């Protein structure tokens, strides 16, 4: 600090920063990128371990042997489902009651803001059925949830079968200290959200739902189970609101690997490699990490567990994948693993609070904690800081040189662009959904197409707006005013990225990697058209498009340009739906803040 209070050295330092500004920025960008790529390699990752003693792998001895019963329940359930043509409520109620559970059902209905064409639903009506296993000798103060989605399209009968078999096995045991809620929810996430809101007696997303009949105290941990045949993946991560506790994520594969002679569960749909320090292994874990970052950045709940996290309930999703390997696991093994998890969770005296809540997983056995991955972002933000700091200096030197002697425009010139950009943002946020009916009347498109196309239209229209309003005010733009505007937009960008990174690192990092360098170099002089192309390339919409391409490459499912465009349209509508249905913040964040900020940069570029 003495460095800064000494005027000589201070001047020398600022001169250094000024002179080496560009190399420093480039260095910082490369460092940030390199750091991020390095996250998948050993020095940055720690071995996963269990902080909670009660969750240790040897704490319980599983005795579930009713795989056959699970399969027969599954067949019966499938039959009844086919007969009813939906969720067989009556059969489920009867079966659960016969197992000795307290059974309730919860009807709910929800009208989507616009029709969801992918899943073909608009006005959703459904019923959640749940049975509560009351813990003997406990006063219903805590509970665990095992939920299985039962939607029309999915073939999830085996999961229901396994759940019922587990329920019947659990009912006979006396060691339960927490109520266990067995929930079959219809219309996957919508049903789950309806149930959670009714359970907490809150109304976050305006869903009309029946009350949940019997409270069973706060849920401390929810686990969710989706299985199709016989291989298991942990899809635990990458949700809108946050991360489940790392302990919970580790429990499952830990138990699984231990029981099943070394074959580990896959993460992000990718099987794990056993070696660690070879190049292919590094590439493999980097790809897994990238997949995770992309998924997390999208802000979508990757499974029902994502909705639990808002209520501070740790939850993971276990999803079966169909692999082509020779050995497959039978229901008994999967049931045993789940039994082990539930008994460990049952043994917990407190909520999961140790371990990590913010982390990235390059593989299940290793993790990157928040303290390690944040510097990657820090380096990127440093560019903005470096760019911001010389501006006053520049101005000072310029003023001394008498460059700006002619006019000293006040901050008034900055008000119109700011207002216009944010008005665009507000339009982008509100108009598509409000104006969908008008759009369908005048154009031959469906509602959901109308919404997506309106979004894109408004987005593009933002570029063409008259951005030179300052000229009306001051007569002529000046060197100084664009610099002030650029300074302002850089500050704004830095603040936005800093905030979003704290809650969603992946989104923040993706935006920073693309937007920061271009934002740093932009100016209304020099190769203007090159700058314009660059700026368009880093707009959030293009980032989304590129992310989709990258994602498809990573899951080794390359697509053509047309498919890519289709996926892009789908992603936009999904993003809107996620916001309106589950309260995801990505769409409003982009529409209300990032897009206006980007428009400000666009303004700077075309400043005259």
């Amino acid at each position: 600090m003495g460095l800064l209070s000494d005027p000589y050295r201070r001047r020398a330092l600022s001169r250094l920063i000024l002179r080496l500004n560009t190399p420093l920025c480039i260095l910082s960008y490369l460092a940030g990128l390199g750091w991020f790529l390095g996250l998948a390699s050993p020095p940055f990752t720690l071995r996963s371990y269990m902080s909670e003693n009660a969750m240790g792998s040897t704490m319980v001895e599983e005795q579930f042997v009713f795989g056959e019963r699970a399969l027969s329940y599954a067949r019966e359930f499938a039959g009844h489902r086919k007969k009813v043509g939906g969720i067989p409520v009556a059969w489920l109620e009867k079966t659960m009651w016969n197992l000795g559970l307290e059974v309730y059902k919860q009807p709910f209905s929800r009208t989507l803001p616009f029709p969801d064409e992918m899943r073909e639903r608009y006005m959703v009506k459904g019923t959640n059925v749940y049975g509560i296993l009351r813990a003997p000798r406990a006063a219903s103060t805590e509970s665990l949830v095992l939920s299985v989605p039962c939607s029309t399209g999915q073939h999830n009968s085996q999961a229901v079968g396994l759940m019922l078999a587990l329920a019947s096995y659990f009912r006979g045991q006396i060691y339960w200290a927490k109520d266990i809620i067995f929930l079959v929810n219809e219309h996957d996430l919508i049903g789950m959200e309806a149930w959670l809101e009714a359970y907490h007696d809150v109304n976050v997303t305006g869903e009309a739902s029946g009350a949940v009949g019997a409270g069973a105290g706060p849920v401390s941990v929810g686990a969710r189970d989706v299985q199709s045949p016989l291989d298991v993946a942990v899809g635990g991560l990458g949700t809108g609101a946050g991360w489940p506790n790392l302990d919970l994520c580790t429990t499952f594969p830990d138990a699984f690997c231990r029981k099943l002679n070394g074959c580990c569960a896959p993460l992000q749909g990718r099987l794990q490699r056993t070696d660690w320090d070879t190049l292919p292994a590094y590439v493999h874990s980097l790809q897994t990490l990238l997949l995770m970052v992309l998924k997390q950045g999208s802000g979508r709940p990757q499974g029902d567990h994502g909705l639990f996290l808002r209520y501070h309930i740790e939850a993971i999703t276990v999803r079966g994948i169909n692999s082509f390997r020779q050995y497959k696991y039978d229901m008994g093994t999967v049931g045993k693993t789940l039994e082990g998890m539930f008994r460990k969770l049952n043994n917990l005296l407190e909520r999961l609070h140790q371990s990590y809540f913010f982390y990235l997983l390059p593989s299940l056995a290793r993790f990157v904690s928040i303290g390690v991955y944040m510097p990657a972002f820090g380096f990127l933000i440093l560019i903005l800081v470096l760019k911001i700091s010389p501006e006053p200096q520049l101005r000072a030197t310029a003023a001394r040189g008498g460059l700006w002697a002619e006019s000293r425009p006040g901050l008034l010139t900055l008000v119109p662009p700011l207002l216009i950009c944010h008005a665009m943002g507000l339009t982008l946020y509100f108009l598509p959904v409000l104006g969908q009916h008008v759009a369908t009347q005048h154009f031959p498109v469906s509602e959901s197409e109308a919404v997506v196309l309106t979004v894109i239209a408004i987005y593009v229209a933002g570029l063409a707006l008259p951005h030179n309003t300052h000229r009306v005010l001051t007569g002529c733009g000046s060197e100084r005013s664009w610099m002030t505007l650029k300074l302002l937009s850089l500050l704004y960008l830095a603040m936005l990225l800093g905030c979003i990174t704290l809650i969603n690192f992946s989104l923040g990092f993706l935006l920073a990697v693309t937007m920061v360098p271009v934002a740093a170099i932009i100016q209304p002089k020099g190769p203007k058209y090159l700058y314009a192309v660059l700026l368009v390339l880093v707009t959030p919409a293009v980032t989304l498009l590129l992310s989709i391409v990258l994602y498809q490459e990573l899951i080794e499912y390359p697509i053509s340009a047309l498919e890519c465009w289709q996926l892009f349209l789908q992603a936009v509508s999904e993003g809107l739906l996620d916001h309106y249905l589950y309260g995801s913040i990505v769409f409003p964040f982009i529409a209300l803040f990032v897009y206006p900020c980007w428009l400000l940069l666009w303004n700077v570029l075309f400043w005259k």
Partner: protein
Amino acid sequence: MAGVVAVVLGLLLLLGSPGGSTGPPRDSLREELLLSPLPSGDLAATFQFRARWDSELHREGVSHYRLFPKALGQLISKFLVRELHLSLTQGFWRTRTWGQPYLQAPAGAELWVWFQDSVTDVDKAWKELSNILSGTFCASLNFIDSTNTVTPTASFKPLGLANVTDHHLLRYAVLPREVVCTENLTPWKKLLPCGSKAGLAVLLKAERLFHTSYHSQAVHIRPICRDASCLSVSWELRQTLTVVFDAFSIGQGKRDWSLFKMFSRTVTEACPLASESKIYVDISSKTQENELLEVTPLPLSVHEASVQGDRRTYAVYDLLSPSLFNVSRSLNVQLKWKRPQDSLDLSTPVLHAQRYVSGYGLQTGEISTLIYNTHPYRAFPVILLETVPWYLRLYVHTLVITTKGKENKPSYIHYQPAQDRRRPHLLEMLIQLPANSVTKITIQFERALLKWTEYTPDPNHGFYVSPSVLSALVPSVIAMKPEDAEQSPLFTSLFPSSDGSSYFVRLYTEPLLVNLPTPDFSMPYNVICLTCTVVAVCYGSFYNLLTRTFHVEEPSSGGLAKRLANIIRKVRGVPPL
């Protein structure tokens, strides 16, 4: 020596003539076991042991105890207790599926005491009494202090003979976190005159009693009328124990039961000190067809009573009648269901309630209580008592009571706000429940930040809020004729019934578990390091940078004269100009 022999002889004589007409303190013991199948198929077993003593305990000089336990008798005379009710409960009575209980108790420990009006310092007496009881019953009753004690104004009336209703003599406390186990059962059993050696108490085998879904043991002491004219007072001690057996898990899916299956013991004899020893089995069926149940051995007599607004039939086994043990030496009551129960159409009790915390996040929340009145045409009032610890700051202006979509104004509200670290919130309301309705009561609260030493060792478990208490006179469907308390079975006679058209019910809701904002206790070191660094390094320098302006002072060389002068000054040793 001779004196000692005389005393011993005298004692022997006294023991030899139980209930003799000559001995001034007359006492008696009744024991009773009620087995009632619950609507859900589970089975509740309620033991009651009543010792009655025709003696003035408050008068000095009572030193000879026979059936009445001395430990409790001395407490009563020392602290001038008028009534004492203590219950220790593990589990939660699920009124909705199990029906109305005969004796309900909240999860955890509950203690409420009425003192005599001659007690000057009630709080001191309460404190000492709870500490002594804590030792007697091996329970954490010593944690009862001013932060969880309240003085309800309307909910807890004396159950016994009383002409004082000044509620300042009442103290009430609940410890919802108390865990009940064998260590609490043993001292309770030791209060019984026969211990667990003979009589019904033989069945009280801890291993089986704690293999149940609900376990509640209680001690009720109250003064009662000595005879019909009620000119003098007798003392009554009731020890009750209720357990609910999960018929499903012990019967492997079948709901049949027998004494041996439940308690792994059978009854062989009555307690020799007891004047009455009976087993009642509830064999009344809802559908009027007695085909449903089959009890073996065949009961010698059948008792019909109207209990809780319902006419019920009980098979009675009188252990004192010699014919009972004629056939076999032990009694193993068995019950078989003739056909499987039909599912899902459980009859719900007239009054039941449910309570939960709603909302999410760690700043605010809402306590919601739902009270159901399923009576088809009668409305009745209910008194609700809420005790909320001080660290949940209630906002009384957010209190909303709605029934059928309309606001329901309580006719009586008593609210005593909390004082931080000194006393809890107390909210008592008299609410009218319309027929066939659900009443929702919500009140919002804010979670307080505790001092770091005030957190429990497991702060992430959450903090308990004691159950709320509902007291109501529920209108009965049938007319009940008042019975003589001495003749009727014990399970009907704890709560005094006012008239034939209604019966008294006290219900407890679930305790709540609330999370408070909890610091990460594992990181004080990190936090200390970080704050110290920030304060020491960054703050001071940044403050300097921000508040001071730095000017570069060009070193003025000065004239030749000045330089010379300075050299001279340097030589002289004085500071330069």
